[in-house]
């Protein structure tokens, strides 16, 4: 059987250190392949042991004691032990840290290397998601010797070693013969960067790449499905795609206007038009595949008349002009055109302003200089963003904040589920933003290839189980 693989990715990572950048593209290459954390997140989204063989949690939920695997070596030959864990976690939460997800480590009070194979982490307060957090790419364990150079030459403990990066083109990793765990089937894997949907389609059709998880051109689905050479799967993601509304800015501070928008949106048309049918409508900020999900799509069903009435009640029957800032992905650009057309029917005239990610982060996310925008929030379980102070959509509801606070200190599953339900409901009722759909993940790969993830609880291309059938 073949032992090589060319896998298409849309975005090229800016560098390869997952602890120093937000880009999902980094994790898509190195997560689970090159770097490993104490825990890892599997295809179903549940937490699995990784470098930590097992752990115990103190009854007050504040102290986690991790038992580490022994005999683990970094790719440069240095040994992995508790000191590396302490170094990694301390580095990530240091004041001058450039870790993009510093929040993950915010609750950590101290990290202590008890012995080479034991680490004790003490939290400031109990945190339900701590083990999950430790499974993020931003929390992988790096060696002090190589931490500084990981950006160009990542050195981890994973089953693959970094080999080469032809910038702008591809990144190649090869099998790590000294891996501590189950050896992988592939000898070599190349991540080829193909940002352009048309080029991606051509590359897949011509066989240049044999797998393209998160394929960027849903319009090619029917064509690819009809071709026996390929296997096409539709998986879930953690991407809640929303029409973000600047809640602080009039007239959107008026719930009637937000409700009107909610009524005006025809989610199915957006999914059909922008995503060629790929995506699940959502009524609140929660992933439908999550056990705690409740279907709230009926809160404000598509109803133009109702929407117009609400606009009238808000005193805006003469219509308003707003801007709709759209980042580059097709869900935003295409979805934006459809939403603009739908909002036009209730008198909201959208000026479409396409922005690059850099501008979006600056103008929308940081300066909060926007009316409407479309974006997919791809972090898992991130409903808590609505409680963040000063978050870009400017939502402020003490009732909601209380639910989130409670969630943070609750570890009982049933209770958590209930709280999640409450939170979803509050957001839906308040029509905080226009909840559109959960981003689907269309994967295409060679029919003879097995072991790739269908779903993406986190953004990663875990190649540890990938193999050719002939």
């Amino acid at each position: 059987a073949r032992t090589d693989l060319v896998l298409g990715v849309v975005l090229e990572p800016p560098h390869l250190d997952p602890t120093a950048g937000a880009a999902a593209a980094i994790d898509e290459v190195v997560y689970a392949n090159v770097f490993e954390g104490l825990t890892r997140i599997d295809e179903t989204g549940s937490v699995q042991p990784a470098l930590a063989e097992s752990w115990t949690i103190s009854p007050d939920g504040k102290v986690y004691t991790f038992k580490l695997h022994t005999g683990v070596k970094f790719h440069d030959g240095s040994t992995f032990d508790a000191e590396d864990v302490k170094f990694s976690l301390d580095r990530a939460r240091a004041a001058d840290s450039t870790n993009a997800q510093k929040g993950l480590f915010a609750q950590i009070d101290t990290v202590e290397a008890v012995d080479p194979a034991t680490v004790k982490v003490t939290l400031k307060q109990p945190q339900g998601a701590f083990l999950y957090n430790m499974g993020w790419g931003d929390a992988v364990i790096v060696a002090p010797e190589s931490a500084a150079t990981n950006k160009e030459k990542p050195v981890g403990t994973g089953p693959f070693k970094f080999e080469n990066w032809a910038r702008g083109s591809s990144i190649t990793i090869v099998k790590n013969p000294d891996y501590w765990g189950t050896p992988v089937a592939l000898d070599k894997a190349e991540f080829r960067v193909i940002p352009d949907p048309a080029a991606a389609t051509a590359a897949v059709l011509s066989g240049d790449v044999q797998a393209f998880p998160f394929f960027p051109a849903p319009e090619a689905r029917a064509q690819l499905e009809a071709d026996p050479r390929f296997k096409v799967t539709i998986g879930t993601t953690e991407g809640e795609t929303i029409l973000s509304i600047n809640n602080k800015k009039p007239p959107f501070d008026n719930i009637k206007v937000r409700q009107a928008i909610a009524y005006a949106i025809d989610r199915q048309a957006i999914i059909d038009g922008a995503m060629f049918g790929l995506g699940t409508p959502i009524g609140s900020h929660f992933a439908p595949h999550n056990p705690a999900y409740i279907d709230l799509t009926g809160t404000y069903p598509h109803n133009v008349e109702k929407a117009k009435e609400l606009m009238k009640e808000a005193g805006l029957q003469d219509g308003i002009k707003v801007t709709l800032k759209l980042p580059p992905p097709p869900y935003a650009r295409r979805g934006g055109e459809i939403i603009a057309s739908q909002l036009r029917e209730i008198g909201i005239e959208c000026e479409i302003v396409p922005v690059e990610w850099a501008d979006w982060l600056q103008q929308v996310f940081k300066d909060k200089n926007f009316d409407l925008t479309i974006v997919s929030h791809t972090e898992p379980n991130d409903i808590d963003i609505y409680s963040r102070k000063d978050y870009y959509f400017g939502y402020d509801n003490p009732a909601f904040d209380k639910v989130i606070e409670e969630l943070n200190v609750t570890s009982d599953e049933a209770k958590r589920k209930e709280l999640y339900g409450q939170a979803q409901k509050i957001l839906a009722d308040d029509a905080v933003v226009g909840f559109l759909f959960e981003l689907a993940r269309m994967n295409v790969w060679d029919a003879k290839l097995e072991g790739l993830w269908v779903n993406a609880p986190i953004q990663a291309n875990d190649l540890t189980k990938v193999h050719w059938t002939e």
Partner: protein
Amino acid sequence: MDTPVAPIATPRTDDFWPRAFANRSFVIGFAITVIIAFAAALSFVWTPYDVTHLVVSDKLKPPSAAHWFGTDHFGRDILSMIMVGARNSIAVALVAIGIGMGIGVPLGCWAAARGGWLDEVLMRFNDVVFAFPALLSAIMITAIFGPGAVNAIIAIGIFNIPVFARVARAGAIALWPREFILAARAAGKGRLLITVEHILPNIANLLLVQGTIQFALGILAEASLSYVGLGAQPPMPSWGRMLFEAQTMISIAPHMALFPGLAIVITVLGLNLLGDGLSDLLDPKLRRQR
């Protein structure tokens, strides 16, 4: 004792049209240009369908009686979009030429009239602008000011300036030593007056021909910019963006790429033919060779 060498076209307007209609390039080019311009003008008052109204359920329909050129991925009528897109392309290219001419021609004439160091400085400045790969600079300009038709116009317009400056200067420099200019100077006319009264009318043909060429290039440039997402923004349709959007659907809806592509090719072709025809008609040197 007739037909001495006339290095500059005669203003014989009375026989322009008969001659023009005997010129194949001109006739084809003119016809295409008129049709496109008419389609663009018509789109202001009427299009088969509303291009801002999306009927997602009608998406990707192949050409039919109801939609002559089919529909796009949002169910919009492609013929209507091409008509409105023509308006956009023409407007962008025209205004860009206006900018190029409006600044370039006076600069070129000034350089030619003054000569010396001013000429040198102006032309060096021109070289600087020329040295920037135009598309790259257009991308930078739109990156700064944001994408949109207006910025595309500015970006394309700026790069028309040196072109027109060069053409105007070359034409004017050839005219200045001519005897009729000397005669005008002997009549006490200053540089400005001579430029306005004698130079400009006599380089008008050159500029007209260059104008059609730049027009065609402007349409291509606008298409390229739109293609990389920096041209006119939705809901305003543009040919380049239509092509961009069609890219991924070539195998499922080839008509989406075919028609806007043809629209660009035909328009540019028409303008080039028109320019060719015009330069044949207006250049007496060529006329004599025929």
